[in-house]
């Protein structure tokens, strides 16, 4: 395998990971504000269908993405309303919605199965595309990939560098403390759950209009659960989450290569590789091993390393609000 091939593989891994990265960012935002949206798998399927159908019918890619975002936002709104107003369990609502989205997409998508449709065109960035190695990987992609990469940076910056991000995180960590300081916790949870859901919707359209063009029953099935797992793996940080998404894509690609070299091993065994790797990393990071490892690090690095390694969920994640 020469270097051009390797670069092509890396470029394709990035493209394959892009929708996952977008969904992970969306869910991270929602969970950081305290709302766990478990409907991802169904929401991705239905928004993938909505995006494809809207783009096909109107001929506009933009309308396709908007329709998908709307579907994702509505799903998230149902979870938020059920939790914040009806005081129902977020996990239960999300679970039911995940199954509803799956079935509904199969039913509504019957007439759109395996139709040729519009797709996001490639868009090479002038100058940057000619940078050796990085150019072909990062800058000979399309708008979806650029959006995913910018989204990661923007989400991280928003969460950890802005006042609004601080308020968002406080709503998910200790709502009663946020309340005493005048943060409108309920409102913020609505806003960020819906925003996160819209991003999940965009991720759905990113599949059906770009990465896995078209529609078929169960088109993105499983990717929602994977995204939810990666949010945990990412320790509720968009950077680590994006890393996890790419790592996931890379190990999948690696598994395909390995499978070719060891045909006697069943394909399903290789499919388990990404998960095993994730469990291993989580044990390393969140178990008792982290503290002694940190103690070995130079003092100046300890604080940033701790921030990177620690992966506690938002303390109030999934909890209902008190009435005040």
């Amino acid at each position: 395998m020469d270097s051009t091939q390797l670069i092509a593989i890396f470029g394709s891994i990035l493209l394959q990971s892009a929708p996952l990265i977008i969904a992970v960012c969306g869910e991270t935002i929602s969970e950081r504000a305290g709302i766990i949206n478990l409907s991802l798998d169904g929401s991705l399927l239905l928004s993938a269908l909505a995006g494809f159908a809207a783009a096909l019918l109107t001929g506009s890619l933009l309308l396709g993405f908007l329709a998908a975002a709307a579907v994702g936002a509505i799903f998230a709104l149902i979870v938020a309303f059920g939790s914040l107003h009806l005081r129902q369990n977020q996990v239960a609502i999300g679970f039911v919605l995940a199954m509803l989205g799956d079935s509904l997409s199969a039913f509504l998508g019957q007439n759109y199965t395996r139709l040729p449709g519009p797709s996001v065109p490639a868009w090479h960035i002038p100058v940057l595309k000619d940078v050796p190695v990085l150019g072909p990987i990062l800058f000979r992609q399309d708008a979806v990939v650029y959006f995913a990469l910018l989204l990661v940076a923007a989400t991280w910056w928003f969460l950890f560098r802005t006042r609004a991000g601080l308020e968002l995180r406080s709503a998910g960590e200790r709502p009663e403390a946020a309340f005493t300081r005048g943060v409108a916790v309920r409102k913020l949870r609505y806003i960020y759950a819906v925003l996160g859901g819209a991003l999940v919707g965009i991720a759905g359209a990113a599949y059906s209009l770009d990465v896995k063009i078209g529609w078929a029953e169960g088109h993105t099935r499983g990717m929602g659960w994977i995204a939810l797992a990666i949010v945990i793996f990412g320790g509720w940080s968009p950077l680590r989450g994006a890393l996890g998404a790419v790592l996931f894509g890379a190990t999948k690609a690696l598994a395909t290569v390995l499978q070719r070299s060891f045909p006697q091993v069943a394909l399903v065994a290789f499919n388990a590789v990404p998960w095993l790797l994730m469990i291993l990393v989580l044990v390393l990071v969140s178990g008792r091993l982290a503290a002694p490892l940190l103690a070995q690090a130079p003092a100046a690095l300890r604080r940033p390393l701790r921030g990177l390694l620690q992966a506690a969920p938002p303390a109030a994640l999934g909890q209902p609000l008190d009435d005040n």
Partner: protein
Amino acid sequence: MQVHLNTIHKQFGSLVANDEISIQFEPGRIYGLLGENGAGKSTLMKILSGYQQPDRGEIALNGVVQHFATPRQALAAGVGMLYQEPLDVPVFTVLENFLLGRADDGQRPQQSAKALAQLAGRYGFQVDPHEHTRELSMGERQQLELLRLLAGGAEVLILDEPTTGISAEQKDLLFASMRTLAREEGKTLILVSHKLDEVQELCDYAYVLRKGRLVGGKQLPCPNQELVDLMFDELAPRPARQTAPGDVLLDLQHVSARTPRLELEPVSLHVQAGQVLGLAGLEGSGQELLLRACAGLLPLSGGSLRLAGEPQPDWDYPRARQHGVAYLAAGRLEEGLIAGLTLTEHMALVSNAHGLLVDWLQNRQLAAQHISTYQVVGQPESYIENLSGGNQQRFLFAMLPQNLKLILMEHPTRGLDIRSTDWIWEQLDRRRADGTAIIFLSADLDEIAARSDQIAVFSGGRLLRSVPAAETTADELGHLIGGAL
């Protein structure tokens, strides 16, 4: 800033927490707000700081009537409250906690960090803006909250039991800063406490609440006795009771224990079969730790424990149960019973039956039998959380095995009416007569004085004194409780 609370009334269900309280606070002074647990201090201060709204009455600041819907509004008007457990976000950095909820003043984070450090320096606090808040001690978290309130424009500062769980040095530092704030900066300070010595040390004037009412105010310093008289009801004379002490059942030698918040200094105590030992002390004085250590729920950090003469080096809860020790926690529904299960299901859980299947018919009969013997108002099919507190406590007693050696209880009758209280103690007396020893703690001095044979008084993690109940007086207990000796 002058604060005027006018006929504040607040009711929770049938409980009147604040009964037409009118009270005034002047700038430049430090006030103590005294009272027993449940006297209504916290409710009143939560109303003043906007966390709760009164049913009736009004708040005036410098003569202007205010309505606070949220704590944010109260702080904007100049009233800030420091809660017993600081309301901060543990995973945030110190700087993030300082900034959360503050209006954007256009400062860069570095400038804000500098401003925070400067403010801290003014009161002798040391803060590292980039440290994570969860790494801080309770005292440091308090300092941070105090700085945040000051930066937010607080002119009236309320501190709710601020000295619980902080070190002596941090307490001195806190008190020094409070004096600076009042004397030099003219702020109005209110210290909510039930510790007399602290209030005497720091405050200019003390208001005393009892059972939701303002019962008086005293210029400080004044004799402790006057405050004690205001705080506590006169203790009823102890009914004469014959005690027939048996052999030493539980013998503690230099037992110590610790939690992150409190350390229990070595305690040596013993209790005889058929004896009742009452543990007195303000909440968080160490008596809870001792009780949990006896139950095997908290490991001993030192000392030794003997049960019926036998050393027990590896004391833990399963072992305690095997040896006939029962423990009834204060949180009936949190630690004692299981919400969502019926009375019958509780019976099935505690039965020692083995095997795959539950004999529901038998357990239902057992539940019905207990319901009638223990006079529980409920059905075998009732969910436990739907019973009243008194009936839950009765059912807890019903589930206690017979022939116990030792019963350990936290607040055995808290929140119960007189009928249930008397009934519970009747049951305990019956067991006591059979040679069961009882150790209990209670916030109710009356109960401790009336029901114990021996009383151990705790303060600040230390056993102050252990006296036979017959030899102590109401005055003495009240004094000791206030930490005055």
